[in-house]
């Protein structure tokens, strides 16, 4: 073309278009989108229901009531502060269960956005986790009212609650990334996960304390579950200062390594898989 011959005035700086990615479009846009979408999804989840937010609390409370009856009247657990321990565990585990449960289908559900707009893919599963986090935040207020009403004395270790929540939150995000990316390729991941999440709930000391178990292969398996140690530590810090805590439950620092390794590996795997799949998500839908 002869256009080359004429000197074009002031060429503008051309930037490479790199195609879709997990975070594409700048960090400000990323966080604004994450916030906007999470907030609207959170609002939406209560819209049209007469009692709004109440329902998000009623669900764990119902489960709590049933389990409480079963384990204090039928099995007669003798655990200090068992009712509030159970409530606390259920609500915190709800972050993991609801976050991953919503995230696994999130990318498929947002097909229109993924296929038709320039959209940082990572926002989609993360906003599902954020919605669960908002719910947890509200529920925790109620939970602490219960804890105080039950007569548990506040201790300085309550200040360490954010550490517990952060550990659960990060793991939830990692698992969500992994599941949502894989579910685009294999649609039965979502179905498998509903079962797996239930198994995981009983594989984590939510409704029973881990010290109920004699040393056995089963106990070793449970101790490999990072959530086990997180919840045992939470019990010692928040509910029952006399509880053993994660280190002594595991039997020393060294024995915590498998769970820690699984935790870190899950996080790396989740980020790696999502990053690898992100550019291809639009084509696979």
């Amino acid at each position: 073309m002869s256009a080359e011959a004429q000197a074009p005035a002031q060429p503008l700086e051309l930037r490479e278009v790199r195609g879709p990615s997990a975070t594409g479009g700048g960090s400000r846009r990323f966080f604004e989108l994450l916030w906007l979408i999470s907030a609207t999804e959170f609002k939406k989840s209560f819209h049209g229901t007469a009692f709004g937010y109440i329902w998000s609390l009623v669900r764990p409370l119902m489960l709590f009531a049933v389990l409480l009856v079963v384990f204090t009247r039928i099995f007669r657990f003798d655990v200090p502060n068992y009712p509030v321990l159970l409530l606390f565990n259920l609500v915190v585990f709800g972050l993991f269960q609801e976050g991953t449960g919503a995230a696994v289908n999130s990318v498929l559900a947002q097909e229109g956005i993924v296929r038709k707009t320039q959209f940082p893919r990572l926002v989609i599963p993360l906003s599902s986790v954020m919605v669960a986090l908002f719910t947890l935040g509200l529920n925790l207020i109620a939970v602490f009212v219960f804890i105080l009403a039950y007569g548990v004395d506040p201790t300085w270790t309550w200040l360490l609650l954010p550490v517990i929540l952060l550990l659960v939150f990060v793991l939830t995000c990692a698992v969500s990334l992994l599941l949502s990316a894989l579910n685009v390729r294999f649609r039965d991941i979502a179905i498998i996960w509903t079962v797996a999440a239930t198994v995981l709930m009983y594989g984590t000391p939510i409704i029973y304390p881990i010290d109920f178990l004699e040393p056995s292969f089963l106990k070793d398996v449970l101790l490999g579950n990072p959530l086990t140690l997180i919840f045992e530590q939470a019990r010692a810090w928040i509910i029952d200062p006399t509880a053993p805590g994660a280190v002594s439950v595991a039997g020393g620092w060294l024995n915590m390594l498998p769970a820690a390794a699984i935790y870190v590996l899950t996080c790396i795997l989740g980020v790696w898989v999502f990053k690898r799949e992100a550019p291809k998500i639009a084509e696979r839908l």
Partner: protein
Amino acid sequence: MAVETTQDGPATPRGRDFDAEPVVIEARGVTKSFRLPVNKISSLKEQITTFSRPDYRELHALRDVSFEIRRGEFFGIVGRNGSGKSTLLKVLASIYAADSGRVRMAGRLAPFIELGVGFNPELTARENVELNGVMMGLERRQARSRLGAVLEFAELEEFVDMKLKNYSSGMLVRLAFSVMIQSDAEILLIDEVLAVGDAAFQQKCADVFHEMRDSERTVILVTHDMGAVEHYCHRAMLLHDGEVRAMGDPGEVARKYLRLNFESAPSSGDDSLGEVADVVVEDAWLEDENGERVTNVEKGRDLHFCAELEAKRDVEGPTFGFTFANPDGVEVIGFGVPLEELPDRVSAGQRIQIRSKIENRLAPGRYVVRCWIHRNRNISDIVLYSPHVLDFVVFGKGEAGVAFFETEVEFELKEGEAGER
């Protein structure tokens, strides 16, 4: 595959010189293919139980596509379904990643692949406009400040706090279009969204596109509507089977597109996709009453339109039609050669002369004559569509765009009942 450039360098058919403008989009050798599994595997069991690699069919959506677009250009991309134009758009919009080649861009790009995508029906217009703005890369504050302009254009101010699920489809489309044109991105990517809303809103949209054509904004328009391509675009590109088949003057590209479209029509016989159409318009002109050629016609004077055509190949059952389009590209009048005058066939080498006299009700302004030739008396079997065989000016006093007809009007002034009080 020869890429035809119908003019030297970036064409400047609308009187704007883009050679001096900087390049804002540059695509070099963009290639993209999809591997379509013959049996799609989407469950884990199938993946595990299928031991051999599944069979894939390679679909080359884009092959070595290169072009550049300069600032301010209104650039059309046309092509049949499956020609790769949507894939190209998605590569430009960072929705797909190209397999090879590279795309570089200066400035922010706002893609509109589908009107209203990303709208959340559970949210109000206010919330959706904000969300959409952020999605297009605005800050939240900026996105909110645009709300007024968006709603005003869409004429939906009173519905600002209504949830989108309660909007009518027309209202939705208006809001979506309005969000699109109020986006302040330097580059707009628009896919097939022109025909929206009622007639009045369509006119408004047409005005906006006109403005965009003359503004600093760069617009890429993907469409099937050749009228829109000719009307708005400075330059166009024809994609076929993932390759660039033509680039340059929109009229030329549109003509090639239409020919390509009927290439596969069964009745079009042997290879009619030569460089020369089966029938070509050799000449077209206007005459005055004395048979002298003229280029302008006074308002109200009859139009004597003549055309001379030559058949390059035999054409069975030809029909000939001409339409006159106003400056907005709207065809305002038209005529066809009456059936009883038409021959059963024209043979290669024969010349055809058409002379017509048309009562001139055209308002002053510039008009373009288009020519349509079909075969087998079938209007979907196009032999030739020539979007621009002649243009001329109707001059004289009168409001542009308004044609006056002889009309009988009665006018009476009556005293109202409350007349004298």
